[in-house]
Structures are given as structure tokens and as C-alpha cells.
């Protein structure tokens, strides 16, 4: 069974690189451009991993995570924040909300790939 990954970011160029990299690794990739869209797709697809940006229109990453955690069907889904917010306070806040990992932008695609692999191995 293919691993499912949901990429949530409003920057198409970033999404494009991530999509290419994960598809190459044989993931089934889903894309959302904001928080609300992410919740919709996650509910339908029950992905194994969600890469979540924080600064997004409509619903931000923190709020999206909170909503995700309410859905019991998603309790095994790993969530990784992918954000340009690099202050310690931001990272702590993200982890406290229940994210499994926090990667700051700019990131290395290779590192994201290995982290995700490890997490769902």
C-alpha cells in the first residue's frame, strides 16, 4: 500500500518541489493551499503524514493542527510543521499543540524525506 502524504502550503513553488520529491519516493501526494482545504482532504484521505505550513490564509497551521487532532480517525497521522517561523517560542508552541516534528524553512528536501521515512517506518 502506498504511503499517503498531505502537503499544506500556500507557496506553489515550494509545494512543487516537495510534490516531485515525494512522488519520486512512491508516496501518494495530496496538496492543500490553506488550512480549511487541508482539513477537508485529510478527513477524506486519512494520510499517514501531513506537512503543515503555519502562515497561511484563512486558517493558520496552529488552528489547523488543533482541528486535525479532534478527528479520531486521524489519531495515527503524523504532523510535521514546515515553517519559516524559527523562533524557539514558535517551535515550542507547535510541539506543544501536538506536532510530531518541526522543520524550519529554508529546509533541505533530503532531510525532510529521511525524517518522514523514519517517522512512519
Amino acid at each position, binding site marked *: 500500500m502506498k504511503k499517503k502524504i498531505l502537503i499544506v502550503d*500556500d*507557496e506553489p*513553488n*515550494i509545494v*512543487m*518541489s*516537495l510534490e*516531485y*520529491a515525494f512522488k*519520486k519516493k512512491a508516496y501518494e501526494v495530496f496538496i492543500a493551499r490553506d488550512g480549511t482545504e487541508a482539513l477537508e482532504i485529510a478527513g477524506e484521505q486519512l494520510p499517514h503524514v501531513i506537512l503543515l505550513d*503555519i*502562515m*497561511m*490564509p*484563512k*486558517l*493558520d*497551521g*496552529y*488552528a489547523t493542527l488543533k482541528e486535525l487532532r479532534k478527528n479520531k480517525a486521524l489519531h495515527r497521522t503524523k504532523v510535521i510543521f514546515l515553517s*519559516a*517561523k*524559527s*523562533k524557539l517560542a514558535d517551535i515550542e508552541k507547535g510541539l506543544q499543540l501536538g506536532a510530531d516534528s518541526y522543520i524550519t*524553512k*529554508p*529546509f*533541505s*528536501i*533530503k532531510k525532510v524525506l529521511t525524517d518522514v521515512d523514519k517517522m512512519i517506518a
Partner: protein
Amino acid sequence: MNNYLLIVIIVAYLAFLFFLAYWAEKQKGRKLVNNPYVYVLSLAIYCTAWTYYGSVGSASHSGISFLAIYLGPVIALPLWIVVMRKIIRISKQHKISSIADFVSLRYGNNRPLGALVTLTCLLGIIPYISLQLKAVSETFALVANETSYVDMGVFGDSTFYIALLIAIFVAFFGTQSTDASKGKRGIMATIALESILKLVFFLVIGIFVVYILFDGTTDLYQKAVSTPNFQELSSFGGLENGFNWMFTICLSFFAIFLLPRQFHVAVVENQDIDHLKKAIWLFPLYLLLFNIFVIFIAWAGNLSLPADVNNDYYTLLLPLQQGHTTLALMVFMGGFSAVISMIVVSTLALSTMVSNNIIIPYGFIKKLVEGNPHENAKSIKSIRRIAIFLLIIVAYFFYERFSNQLSLYSIGLVAFVIIAQLAPSFFLGLFWRRGTAKAAKAGITIGLLIVVYTLLVPIVVNALSTSSTFVEKGLFGYEWLRPSQLFGLDYLTPESNAFLWSLSFNSLTFIGFSLVAKGNYRERNYAEMFVHHENYENLQEGAFVWKGEAYVDDIKRLLNRFLGEQRTLRALTIFNRKYNISEAEEKADSRLINFSEKLLTGTIGSASAKILLASVSKEKPISLVEVLNILEENKETKANNKLLFEKSKELSQMALKLQMANEELLQQDKLKDEFLDTVAHELKTPITSIKAASEILEDEDMPVLLRQQFLENISKDTDRLAKLINNILDLEKLSSDRTELNIETRSINSTVKKAIQGVERIAMQRGAKVDFRESDYLQGMYDEDRILQVLTNLLSNALKFTEKEKGIIRIVIAEEENDIAIAVEDNGRGIPEEDHNYIFEKFYQSKNQNTKKPQGSGFGLAICKRIVERHQGSIWADREFQKGARLVFTLPKSA
């Protein structure tokens, strides 16, 4: 009425007063006793039996002249707000307990002067008290219907017992505290009640006489007109009588200040200086009410009673004639109330004066110095109690011997004339620094001698024998020395005559003596303190009036004797704490001396206090120059304090400003942080994209088309990065005013057209319509490149916020007085209400920090704002505009 029943009623009434006094004494600090109405009612002891009975008597045979006695106070009362305020302030400051204390302290705490004032008061007031007793006795007889007067001696006379009961009452409630300057709540409460009773009962009898015995005032007037001497009784009686009026008004004017009982209730018992404000209109009102019916009752009495009755008692005789015994009893009780309150306060005031100004300083001082505190307090109280009994007994015997020959009205006036002798030293002393003790003593003595000669001697002579050549023909047969027509003035009443001459000589002597020789340093210092009392209220214990050497221990021992160890210790602790003086201090300074003197003054009077302190200290003369220096220093300290106060106020204001500035800086700092965060975020986004793309490009298997796409992304993100950096730099440059503006006269129409051209391509892509109505040919003064930047920014924002294919953007130009206003409107989603105030803020980001705004909006508007402001224009978002967003900016018109 049965006289035993009457006695029972009187005793019951007195018992009730005892109870009331006892109860009120317990109400410490309650509003009930300490309020302006009780104060006003206590002033009403001015209305004695003289008013209650004597006014009617006087009105029945002399017409309206009785009114003069009430006009004086009515004229004096408005002055109280200034004069009485001053007197009360000084008295409270020095713990003064009587008028004798007041006068003697003013003249340097002069012991003989205090005694002289006391004697003057005794001379005036004892006969006055006798008269009150006479009124009780005679009205008692009338009500009890003792038709035949049987002399049963002193012990068979009910008046004697009543006098004794009053003495016990005063002795008990008047000496509760050894400090005579302390208020006597119990007594004041009973006085207030009595003042209400006497007024109410007098009004009741007035209404009875006018409306029941007669058919209203008109009826009474018409009947009275027919009496033989009516015309004479209802007029002022020409110029000569005019003088009598004037003198009587003057007399009563002085009396309201100087009568010991008035001084006592108005000054010593004053609890709050603000009570004066009520007194100055309520007390005249009281007097007015009291006098409304007097003349009518007098007419009624003249009309319906036989000619041989005592006119003074019309108020009793009228109801008795009609058989209204209860009403007569009410009138009697009203008069009795007037009598008791007068006697109580008079003896209270006089006994304090006698003990503090005569008995203690001239007899007991040595004994007191040796005694222990408990015994001293007891002896002081005993002295006062004995004085109270002595006064009432003397008054009683005076009544027994002399009063048959005199009317209430005339003895009242004699008392006033005697008391008026204090006026020059009292009033001039308050306002004239020059007055001296010697002058005061000489003035009062001369005045008294003239009163004795012109008024008392004729009265006594007339009382003892039927005729006297001396009174009728003058001393040694000189006509101009006739006592009642001194220096040939023959149209004045005896009282006016005595008043005129005694007071004239008294005043002249006082002024003359004062001008001839200055007083000693002590007199001058106290004069200064009384006349300019407001300067000294803040001085520490009036510190400057004493200079010399004394030891704290001696003073402590002295205070112990009179106050007891506990009170002394408490007082000294407070004193030390107040002035920050060490307990170990051996030498006493002037503040302690003055403080102690004041403490003792309340207990034993100022004269004795001075003697006592002199006994434990070596006083050195202090000159007025020194006094004035100290005053000057005090003023300087005050000025310095004021300066300091102002400075500290300034400082705290400055601190506040600094704090505000600091907060603003912090806010700026916070905004700057946020700005940097935003900048960082904005920069990181394209960098992330570039980095990710370049990593992906390492994959050699990537299809060519995709590879090209990634390369293109990298190039676009690099542009975005460059643009961002330029924006940031631009904003910073504009903010710090480093960029020069290239301002020229330009056509606004053409600038707008250029801007529209610049966004034409994007507009086409989004299918938006840009509508520009060219206005009249308008020229502005601006840097065209910069304004193009503003317009482009506003237009791209408008395009960004409108829906695809539906956007309509309109540019409207309006000419104003000095400016051109350019508005860019769109039909997009508009600006959220909460963002209106902030969209132009340099560092502002929407409230929700994590929700990204459409790209570029972070700096664009901030840059626009800076550019417009650099052109002296302003930029704002129009809140009224509902269809979308409407941003307006102004530019200066070309001249």
C-alpha cells in the same frame, strides 16, 4: 394652680434636663450634638427672661424701642463670618476658655487684666442672673396664684431651691473635664432644647392672644389705635430717641460678642467653624420669630388688663385672666427654660473665669504646684464648683435685696453697658497691633468708673432713699455733673447716657495709652499673633514668642501635676513625634514651652499657666524684630516648601512623560521586531523555494519540461527576493528622509494615465476594467516617479482584491482648496473594520499574525504613506465607502 403641683412639674422638668444632659454627654462624636442647628439654638441663650417677659413690658409702655436690642445682633451676624471666624480660630489655637482668657492673652497673658475683665463680667452679670431669678419667682407666684405674699424667709422661698438645683446641674455637667476649653455636650443639648421650647411656647401664646383673644392683627390694631398714647408707642420718637435707638443697637451689637455666655456658646463651644455659615442666617430668623408677637401682646395687655399689673407679665396674665391655666403653665415653662439656660451658661462661663483668672492665679497656684495630679484635678474641679455655687448664691441674695425696684428690661441694659466696657480692648485688640495691657486696664477702669457714677450710683441711691440732691442736682451741686445727664446732655435715657460717656472715655483712654507707650515684648508678640493670626496658624506651637532656658524634666514634672502621668506622657510622645524630637533631649525648646502652656491653659487658665511655666524656666526678652525674623523664616520655609512641591510635581510629570516615551519606544521596538519577523518570513519564502528547487534539480532523471519549470521558478523567486529587498530599502530611505524628492509642476491627468498604462497588462489578465474620468486640467507639485509608485501600488492592490473578470476600478480626481484629492476605488472585498487604523502602519500586520495576507501588502501601503507625507499630503481609507475599498490621497496643488 396648686403650688406643690407646680413644684413637682418644675422638678420633673429639671430631672428631665439632667437626664438629657447625661445622655448627650455619652453621645461622643455623634452628629446629634455636633451640628450647626444645635450651635444656632445655643446662640439663642441671648433670649432670656428679659426677652420672654421684659420685651412685652417694655413694648407696652415704650413702644417699639425694645427691638433695638435685637437689631444689634442682626447687624453683627453677617460680620461674624470674618470677625467671629478670627476669634474662634485664635481661641482654638490657644485653648481659650473664656472672654477673660481671650483679653488677657491678647495683652501678653496679663494676669491683672484677666482679673479685671472677670470682675467687670461679675459686676454686669450677677445682677442679670438675679433678674432671672426674680422672673422665676414672680411668675411662679402668678401661676401658683399666691395672691398674698408672705415672707417665709429664704428657706421658704421656692426660688431659692430652684437656684440650688440649677447650681447642682451646672456644677455636675459643667466640670466633667478639668480642661475648661473642652465642649460640654450635655449642657449644650439641654440649651438647644430649651431654646426650642421657649420659642415654641412664646409663639403659642402669641397666636393665642392675637387670634383667639382678638380677631387677628387688624382687629387688635384697630382697637389699640384708640388707646390714649398709641401714637407715641408706635413711632421712633424723633431725633433724640433716634440717638437712644442707635446707642441701644450698639450696645446689643457688642453684647452678642462680649457677654460671657455668648462668648462661651459662640466660641468655646463651637465644634466646627463652618457652623457659622448656618448661624448667620438662622439666628436672625430665630430672633425675628421671637419678636413677631411682642408688640401685639403688649397692645392686647394694655387693652384688656388693669393698669396696675406688672406689664412684664402680660404673657402670663392674659391666659390666666381667661382661665387658661395650662396655657399659662406653658408660658411659665418657656420662661423658666429661658431662665435656666441663661443661668446655666452664665454661671458656667463666670465660674471658669473666676477660677482661672482670680482664684487660681491669686491664691491656689502654690498649692497646686505642690499637689499631686489626682488631687490637683480634684481641687480645680472643686474650685470651679464652689465658684458656681457662690455665684448663684450671691445672685440670689442680690435678688432678695435689690430686685424689687428694677424692671427686667433696665437691669438687662445695665449689664450690657457694663459688658460693653470690654469692647475697645477686645475689638481694637483684634485689629490694632499697638494696643497695650496698660491701656486696656486703664480704659476698662475709667469706663467702669463712669458707668458706676452715671448708672449704678443713681440706681442704688434711688433704691435706698426717695430723693437725693446728688442725683438730681449733680455732684457738689454742679449741674453738668448730674449722673444721668452728664455734661448737660439731657435727652438721652440713663443707659444711653452712661454708654456714650463711658465708652467714649474708655476708647480714648485705651487709644491714648497705647499711643503713648509701647507694650513690653510679650504684649507686642501676642498682639502680632492675634492681629495677624492667619500667619501663625502654621507655626510650630507659635514657637517664637518665647526665648529662654528650661529643662524637659521640670516641665514634665509640672505637667504631671495637672494632667496626670498618663496624659502627660501621651501628650509629650505626640509632641516629640510631631516635631521629630528625641526623647533623650534635656533642654526644652520654645515649642515645648508653648505646647505645655497651651495644655495647662485649658485646665487652669492662661494667666496661671504662664506663672507655672515661668517658675520652671528662665525666660529672656524676645524682641519683635526677632519675632518677625522667625515669621520671615517661616514664610521662607513655606515658600521653599512650595517651590519643592512644584519641583517635585514637575519631576513626577517628567517621569510620567519619560514613562510614556519609554512605552512608546517599547511599542516601537515590538513593532520593529514584528517587522523584522515579517521581513524574515517574506525573505525566507522565496529562499526556501529556491533551495528546494535547486536540490530537486540534482535529480538527473527529471523530465526536461519539468526541469525548465523548476529553473523558471528559481528565477522568479530571485526576482521576488530582489523586489522585496528594494522595497524594504526604499521604505527605510523614505522614513529617514534621506531621499531627495524631484518636485516639479506636473499634470495629474497624465500621471494617472501613465500609472494605468503600467498595470494594463495585469488588468487585462484579470479581466478587470479600469475607469478613469479625466478631470479639468489640474496641475500639482510632486515627484512624478514617486507618485507613479503610489498609484501603481494602489492600483495593483485594487486589482488583487477584486474578483477575476468582475473587477471595476475607478480613479476619481477632485479639486480642493489647496490640494488635489485622488481616490482609487474598487468593488472588491473591502478593508476589514479592525484594520482600518493600521493598514498604513509601517510594521503593521493583520491581527492574526499567522494568517498571511495577499502578497506584497506588508510594505506597499507603508511606502505610499511615506511618499504622500513627504509631499505634505495625507492618505486614508474611506470608511464610508461600502462597495469595496476606497483609498484617497492628497497632493498640493501648484500655485
